[in-house]
């Protein structure tokens, strides 16, 4: 195989891996961003911002924060392992 063709293939593979890793790394932040955007668009959904007179269930139910929490948990607990495994799998396939 000519060396520049081999290099092109390696670059293409690396680009695909990097795109997928980037996508995984973006899922959490984008989910969090959706929750924050929602909180700005409908601040009355966050009863914590005006807690006076609110009952227990109203104070517990903060849907925009739930969305932020889902993104945060994914970004911290799931995404790093997935990206590491993706790189391992790609490296194993290349060698």
């Amino acid at each position, binding site marked *: 195989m000519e060396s520049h063709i081999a290099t092109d293939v390696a670059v293409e593979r690396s680009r695909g891996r990097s795109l997928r890793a980037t996508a995984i790394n973006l899922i959490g932040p984008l989910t969090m961003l959706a929750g924050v955007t929602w909180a700005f668009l409908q601040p009355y959904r966050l009863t914590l911002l005006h807690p006076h007179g609110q009952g227990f269930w109203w104070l517990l139910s903060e*849907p925009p924060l739930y969305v932020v929490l889902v993104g945060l948990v994914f970004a911290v607990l799931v995404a790093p392992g997935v990206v590491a495994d993706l790189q391992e*799998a790609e490296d194993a396939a290349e060698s």
Partner: protein
Amino acid sequence: MLPRAEFVHWWFATGFLVIGVLLVAEAVVGTEVWRRRPWRAYLWPGFMFLMGVLMWPVMVFYTNSTIHMLAHGSWAQAMMLAGGAELALVRGKIRSPYWRLATALGLAVSGAAILIHEQNGWLFARAAFLHHAIGWTAMVGAGLLLLRAFRPRSTALQAGVAVVFVLIAVFLYSDRDTAPIFGHMSPLAGEPRR
């Protein structure tokens, strides 16, 4: 002392969002990479099963109408069946890939139940609109899951299923009692709220 119905809908929306996010990630990296750590393979089926279990108290405590009670009961069974079948597949207790049809069946039953138990038209109120939207989205999801049972490696189908779960989460988060939708609402639906 019971939480309002929309609170429960928001909690289940969060469950659907969790499943949707996990399915998106699995679609991006592929099933082989996703299952490199065994605990990860159990995540979304486990959530599905747990949501089915948690639907039982909803059925028991929210008995404002028989048809709602039946609908909640059918969702509890459908989610437990789907989650249980996917868990058993991951664990290797069952091997035929056609067991994935249980998830398609679960979503089809759930979609049918939500469509049947909504007695009003699309624009009667926000709740009615959301029932129709969720029901038909679930039916589309059931179709995608049906196809996925025969083409398990299709990234497009996996991504489609993930989007369906995220959409259902968005619809459930949108639930706000009798608030208007697109400015249209029947005067019979009650006083509009935000």
